[in-house]
């Protein structure tokens, strides 16, 4: 990268199955207050604002008109991208790289509990000619991908269940998480079938919450913050738009985005050089598929890695110490934001009971969910 970008403030609400006490504006305001306080900036001192949201999830068209107030961004340059949080973060980084902006606030939130026809909204993302007339649930595509991925890689349903057990256990040590639980492999395997091999407990359940992050140019970050967390690389990629033409055996979007981010951060051996990863586990198998696609395990070995405990919080490469989307809750366009905040807490050594010792460098990855093949990878470090 031309220059490193520093994360100088993060604000995150807790994640909850429902959140009737606050409107989306109030929830976002409370996250923004925390982020700006950490950054030591008033909103008037922040050069620009980028938010990530999807109109159909908000229930407003042209939702970007509803974002300035709660960010303190009235009469300021604001824009909204129809994308996931980490993509918005990448856009914020590019804006700083232009030299025209010193500081940017990036926001995303989920009020998924307010969408009463969530499955309809998700099915609405399917191609109207080639998929919707089949009238299948939004989860069917995950089932198709899981089947092909497991068959070709040799990973098993039991190993996917081990991901669920691990992540939901990790979430018990995370005050922000909504779905912490002590489960057994059999609990997962015997949970109600959804789109088999996909079962109910393989699926991250929705949560509400908001995230605001303030980033700054390298010089500005050093001047403003005692403990900036650096973005050494960030990249995203969109794969084949037609799911029936996709290679379900690997997540090519994650592979390519990771390759680019590794090159930016000068990482040659990700498993050796990174101390932990926070990656997309919206479905249990996605954690295994993403691990293999981003070079943390050879094909078919991510399941073994999980079963051996190597990806546990005290393992060689902790994966989703936050509890991931399975343990914290799936927050749609905000999901990478939750994972980024966890990485920042870990790298600042502020993660409390779940702190990974001597954590210096981490990868954060998001996927935009069914039916997309879009994902972002960021590399963070504390030195």
């Amino acid at each position, binding site marked *: 990268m031309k220059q490193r970008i520093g994360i100088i403030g993060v604000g995150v609400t807790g994640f909850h199955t429902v959140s009737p006490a606050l409107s989306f504006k109030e929830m976002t305001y409370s996250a923004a207050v925390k982020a700006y306080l950490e950054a030591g900036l008033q909103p008037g001192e922040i050069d620009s604002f980028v938010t990530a949201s999807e109109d*159909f999830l908000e229930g407003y068209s042209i939702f970007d008109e509803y974002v300035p107030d709660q960010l303190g961004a009235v009469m300021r340059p604001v824009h909204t991208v129809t994308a996931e949080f980490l993509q918005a973060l990448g856009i914020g980084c590019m804006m700083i790289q232009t030299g025209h902006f010193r500081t940017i606030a990036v926001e995303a939130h989920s009020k998924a509990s307010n969408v009463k026809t969530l499955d309809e909204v998700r099915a609405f993302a399917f191609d109207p000619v080639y998929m919707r007339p089949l009238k299948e649930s939004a989860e069917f595509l995950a089932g198709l991908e899981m089947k092909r991925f497991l068959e070709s890689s040799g990973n098993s349903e039991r190993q996917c269940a081990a991901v669920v057990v691990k992540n939901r256990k990790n979430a018990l040590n995370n005050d922000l998480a909504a779905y912490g639980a002590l489960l057994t492999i059999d609990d997962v395997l015997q949970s109600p079938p959804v789109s088999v091999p996909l079962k109910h407990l393989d699926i991250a359940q929705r949560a509400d919450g908001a995230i605001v992050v303030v980033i700054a140019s390298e010089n500005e970050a050093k001047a403003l913050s005692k403990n900036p967390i650096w973005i050494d690389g960030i990249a995203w990629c969109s794969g084949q738009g037609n799911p029936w033409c996709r290679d379900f055996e690997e997540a090519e979007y994650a592979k390519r985005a990771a390759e680019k981010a590794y090159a930016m951060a000068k990482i040659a051996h990700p498993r050796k050089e990174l101390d932990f990863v926070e990656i997309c586990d919206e479905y249990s198998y996605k954690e295994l598929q993403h691990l293999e696609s981003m070079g943390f395990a050879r094909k078919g070995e991510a399941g073994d890695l999980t079963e051996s405990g190597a990806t546990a919080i005290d393992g060689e490469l902790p994966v989703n110490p936050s509890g991931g989307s399975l343990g914290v809750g799936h927050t749609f366009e905000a999901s990478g934001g939750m994972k980024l905040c966890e990485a920042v807490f870990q790298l600042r050594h502020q993660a409390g009971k779940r702190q990974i010792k001597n954590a210096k460098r981490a990868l954060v990855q998001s996927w935009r969910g069914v039916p997309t093949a879009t994902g972002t990878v960021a590399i963070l470090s504390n030195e």
Partner: protein
Amino acid sequence: MKIDQVPMKGLTSEEYERAIKIKWQPKLQYAWDNGIAIGKYLAGLKEGKILASQCIKCGRIMLPVRSFCELCWRPTDGEVEVKDTGVINTFAICHVNWDASRLRPDEPRHIPAVIEIDGASKGQGIMHVIGNVDPKKVKIGMRVRAVWKPAQERTGTITDIIFFEPY
């Protein structure tokens, strides 16, 4: 026909009818959390009151209720009841419904308006409709008052005020 040979002309009605079309009607349902501010405002309307928030830093009395002052970037300092009277800031005379279908000639015209409520700061208007008036007589600056639904019919929505009428 190849994509680069398509004549860029419209279809005839007959051609359009013959074309295979794909239709989809989404079911989109939402129930938004009101939270603190909207919740208080709507509860006020149910009681027949228009509530505003005050910010002691900028001194504004803001409508509708908000839990933070977006300009001072701080929590607001409680609510005050403002009057249910005010002045028309601007209005339009609508000959169409909200779905753009035309009103019949015998139906009354709709008169949506921004009303500057007495007791709120300048620029803190609310959006409502003007009623009980000949549209030709409505003017910017005209004084209006709220016409409320009877208490037992109010549900905590902005239509608990039926319309504002000149007085």
